[in-house]
């Protein structure tokens, strides 16, 4: 049986203070992600998908309910424990890359390892390995300002994977990319998921991106409304059509 990576129970998030006007962004959300899965979360703007991701990635605290990553209750983490958890268990790809523009690609990628006290020699070895796998070896010495959007996102992807996280989160990772780069990145993520066995959870509002996932969770007004699973023998374009069809009825 596959190990559970993420377990979400009755997760609720309410914005606004008690005596002010409150807004319930998430209403009792339940789901889990198994090891090696590639899960997409879809929903319109304001559906609560980003709120959910922020909570899973420890960037925000839930109002109630629990989120467990590899059995660890992350809402209880604080201070150094929280920082260390982020540094060792989580990889994150942001929509706007979030690379540090004053570091080269190699330094950006190596940063999570430096933080864990890995020796300089091993860091170099791991960077070379990951960069070759992601096809960005020749970009290592460049600064982010010298890279295209697609290249930047590949570097960000390498940075998110370099420390072998338990899960890779993506927040609209193709949002700022042109269609060719977007396709390349998504193919890359599929490969990473398949070959390296990394679990991925990605938030997107784009059906094309979502069609690369193996399972899609649809959120509407803070609730999980539907779930779509890609059959083993189903090809991607077929699944894409299915997603589009569902969206056509879902958003009305």
């Amino acid at each position, binding site marked *: 049986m596959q190990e559970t990576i993420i377990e979400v129970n009755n997760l609720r998030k309410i914005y606004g203070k008690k005596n002010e006007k409150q807004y319930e962004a998430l209403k009792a959300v339940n789901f889990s992600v198994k090891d090696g899965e590639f899960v997409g979360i879809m929903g319109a703007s304001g559906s609560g998908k980003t709120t959910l991701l922020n909570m899973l990635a420890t960037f925000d605290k839930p109002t109630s309910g629990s989120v467990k990553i590899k059995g660890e209750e992350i809402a209880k983490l604080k201070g150094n424990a929280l920082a260390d958890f*982020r540094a060792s268990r989580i990889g994150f790809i942001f929509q706007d890359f979030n690379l*540090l523009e*004053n570091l080269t690609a190699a*330094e950006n990628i190596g940063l999570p390892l*430096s*933080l864990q006290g890995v020796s300089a020699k091993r860091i170099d070895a791991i960077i070379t390995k990951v960069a070759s796998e992601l096809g960005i070896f020749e970009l290592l010495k460049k600064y*982010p*300002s010298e890279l295209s959007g697609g290249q930047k996102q590949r570097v960000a992807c390498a940075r998110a994977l370099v420390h072998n996280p338990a899960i890779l989160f993506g927040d609209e990772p193709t949002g700022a990319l042109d269609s060719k780069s977007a396709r390349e990145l998504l193919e890359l993520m599929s490969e990473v998921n398949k070959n390296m066995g990394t679990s991925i959870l990605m938030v997107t509002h784009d059906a094309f991106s979502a069609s690369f996932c193996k399972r899609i969770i649809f959120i509407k007004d803070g609730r999980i409304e539907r779930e779509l699973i890609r059959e083993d023998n189903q090809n991607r374009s077929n699944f894409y059509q299915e997603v589009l069809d569902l969206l056509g009825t879902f958003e009305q």
Partner: protein
Amino acid sequence: MLQKLAVNGIKNRWKDYLVLFSGLVISSSIFYLFETLSTNGRYLKENGAIVSMIGYIFAFGSILLTLITLVYINYANNFLLSMRQRDYGLFMMLGARKGKIGQLIWIETMLIGFLSTVVGVIVGIVLSTGMQNIVIKSLGLTARYYAPIWWKAILWTFILYLGLFFLAAIYNTFLMTRKPALKLLKSQQKAAKKQLPMWMQFIQALIGIILLTIGYGVIQNAVKYGSKTIPISLFTITFGTFFVFNSIVTVGISLLRKTNLAKKNLNGFTLGQLEFRVHDYTKILTVVTMLLALALGAITTGIGFNNITDKTAEAQSAYTFGLFQPTSKQRTLIKKLDIEQQSSYSYKVSGNAVYFEETQFEKQPFQTVKFNSKSFTSSYAKLSVAELKKDSYPLQKFTESIQPNRQVVLVDAQKFTAIQGQQQTALFFRAKDTPDAQSILSQISNLEYAKSKQKDRTDAIQGNYDAKIYVVKPLYSGLEFMGIFLGIAFLAMLASCLMFKILSGAFEDVRRYSMLAKLGVRKSLLQGAIAKEIGILFVLPAVVGVVHVLIGLNLFKGILINPYYGIWLPFTIFAVLYLLYYFIVLFMYQRIVLKKI
């Protein structure tokens, strides 16, 4: 409508404007402070009489301060531009005409310049009045002809600042109307990276070191170069410092980045930050170094003049006082003092002479002082009767006040008894010249002066205390005031310069540090990275500045005899203030950058 929007923009960012405005006010008020000294010719002449070419020195000080102001306003203007670029880009997007935008930015720049200069001059007047009162009262100094409200200083401050802001306004208008709106909107996202080739950096390092060597060499041989010393050394040291920072620091950082050390924790990030900002930083590092050298140098020489006041007074004679026919009041006052040495002699006045009895001088020999300029200490020697007979000047010096134009004669006991006239007593003593003793010493002095037949107090010097108060202090205290005054002014300028530069960078860093936190960097590591980055900005100028001061003190060899005497005191005071300031800036920076983490 657009005006309304522009004003609204200012309202929304009032905190940033406060930083900008207060920085400019401090800068202009300090320029004003400096000019109150520099343009007051009479004050300089009266107080700096023993420093040749003092006006000349101040003229070059003004030039240096103008250069510093130039860099400062350049930073301030960039800060303003970076704040406003997005807003103006947005206005353009909304369809504002370029001409209108240009007009707005021109008015805004000039308004900020004008207001900060006016407030700066007012603050300058308040500060100079306060400084005059505090420095003069607390140190017992006199600064004749110093005027806190000095129209020439007001005029020069306005000319410089409004002139510079006029140029800045033209530059801003030009920039804003030329750049496409999109570029203005996204201006914050760009990250320029310029790296000079290695050989250029090597040449810069070489030029820097040669310039510094020339500057230091000229200072060491100030006598030889005379009036050329100041301009040469000022020019070579300022630019030498700049080239050294621009090359050695840059190369040093990029070399450090290649070592394994850079792969530990956040070191790589900090070095990356520094390398990215180093071109921006070299200017501020140079300015801070020069200000630090000037501030520390001014305070050190100021305290040096204080030391030499005491030492020169100490070297006037072996006695704090020589009292003739001490009154009972004087005797009770003396009992309160800490006496180191005391002797009392009988004398008689007859005809054109004052007679002393020699046996008394055998029993309690009269002392003279010898001053060792190297160790800065006074030693006392006993005069034999024969020596005193040969040259009675050490004793005669004391009788001039009460018995002017009478010769001192030493006679044996028999002759002394034979001389007609009333037998009187002269009391010589040396007491510890502590701050507590000042009022007692002053009372004794006034009681003694009451007996004097001299009109001018400087002709009635009855020992070292009178010499200090009426001769030496007036000579040096103007310079001491100048030194401490300028030291504090430069220190304030340095503080505002560092604060301004560092805090203006803080806003850009908020995003970077929150990114790092999302990557899972511990807060303590983030704090450490900030401490290191700001620490570098403090340490580098401190090291180079201290070297400048240590060498620059040679300039004062002529007046201060040993300018290095007791420098630990100003250096320690300075180090404590500097360290304290580091922690304040660090605290503020961390509060801005790590607020949400």
